[in-house]
């Protein structure tokens, strides 16, 4: 009987000795997770603070921008991708890319305009609509942003480029380029209330 009791006690002791370390592992595990999460979040905050305080975001990409004129090697009216990266603006169309240094930009301006919804071949087709139906379709238009760049090449030659973007997309590009050292005769729209 005593031997049986001892066995039971031993087994209970074994069980209890097994349970105690298990609780310790769980607490440590939870502690590690909590510390890891705290460190992760604190590092993000620190990084965010440093990037906000010292420099603006490094890269801005705007796809499906219409290059109206001034692409040199890129054909007029092409749909290009504008990328502001490092201290340059890249105008890319397919495999062709043109680089413009922000320091060489003499002026950036943004403007609002409107473009008709029906253009190209469809526009020609609307002319065939009887009773002036084509004219009525001319009333449908949408607002766009026009971004104009004036810059110089390596030889000092003056260049200009005109882009048409969806409404509200030109201002961030202008802001980014100005932050990178480009000049702008008209101030940024966001800068006006801050001065008041």
């Amino acid at each position, binding site marked *: 009987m005593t031997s049986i009791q001892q066995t039971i006690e031993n087994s209970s002791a074994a069980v209890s000795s097994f349970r105690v370390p298990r609780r310790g592992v769980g607490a440590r595990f939870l502690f590690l997770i909590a510390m890891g999460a705290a460190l992760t979040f604190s590092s993000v905050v620190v990084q965010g603070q440093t990037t906000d305080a010292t420099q603006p975001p490094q890269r801005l990409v705007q796809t499906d921008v219409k290059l109206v004129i001034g692409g040199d090697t890129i054909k007029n009216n092409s749909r290009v991708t504008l990328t502001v990266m490092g201290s340059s603006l890249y105008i890319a169309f397919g495999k062709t890319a043109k680089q413009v240094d922000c320091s060489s930009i003499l002026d950036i301006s943004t*403007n609002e305009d409107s473009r008709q919804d029906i253009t190209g071949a469809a526009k020609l087709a609307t002319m065939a609509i009887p009773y002036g139906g084509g004219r009525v379709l*001319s009333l449908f238009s949408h607002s766009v942003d026009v971004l104009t760049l004036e810059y*110089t090449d390596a*030889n000092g*030659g*003056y260049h*200009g480029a*005109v882009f048409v973007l969806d409404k509200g997309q030109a201002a961030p590009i202008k802001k980014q380029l100005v932050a990178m050292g480009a000049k702008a005769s008209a101030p940024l729209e966001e800068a006006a209330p801050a001065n008041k």
Partner: protein
Amino acid sequence: MKHHFRAAVPVCFPLVFVGLLVAVSFAGPALAADTSTTPKASFSSIQIQPMDANDIVIPPEFRVAVYENVISQIRKTGKFQHVYRGGDKDAAAAPDLVTLHMTAQSFKKGSQKKREVTTVSGSSSIVLKVHITDHAGQTLVDRDVEGKVRFFGENLRVTYDFSKKVAAIVRDTM
């Protein structure tokens, strides 16, 4: 036989008329070329200066489009070996360089929507004084050129119309 002849007259007459028109259209320029006696000056390079807005409010996209279109159209004339942009350092070394200046005289933006709906209003126009001088500063061309969009097309098309006219002047003068 008589019947066939009568039937052939209405068919032949337009053909003969068109043939005459074609002959005259080909002979016209040839005659005009014979009568013009002024010799054309030839230059190997041209420098195109950016537009002077002359206190007239012209949106920057129009200024830039005028400049780029003029560069493009003058290159297309094939009259010059080099077309230099304003500020290009290489232009100083060109031996017989002519310089093209543009000064704004008037600008009306217009409205594409109005143009296409009403036909009679909303036209866009831009007038610039085009001044071309040679290396010595002697004036070769000095005239006002107007670019217009009357019926169809975007407002920026005035810059294309203007540049085509400038290219035609350059082609005729040089």
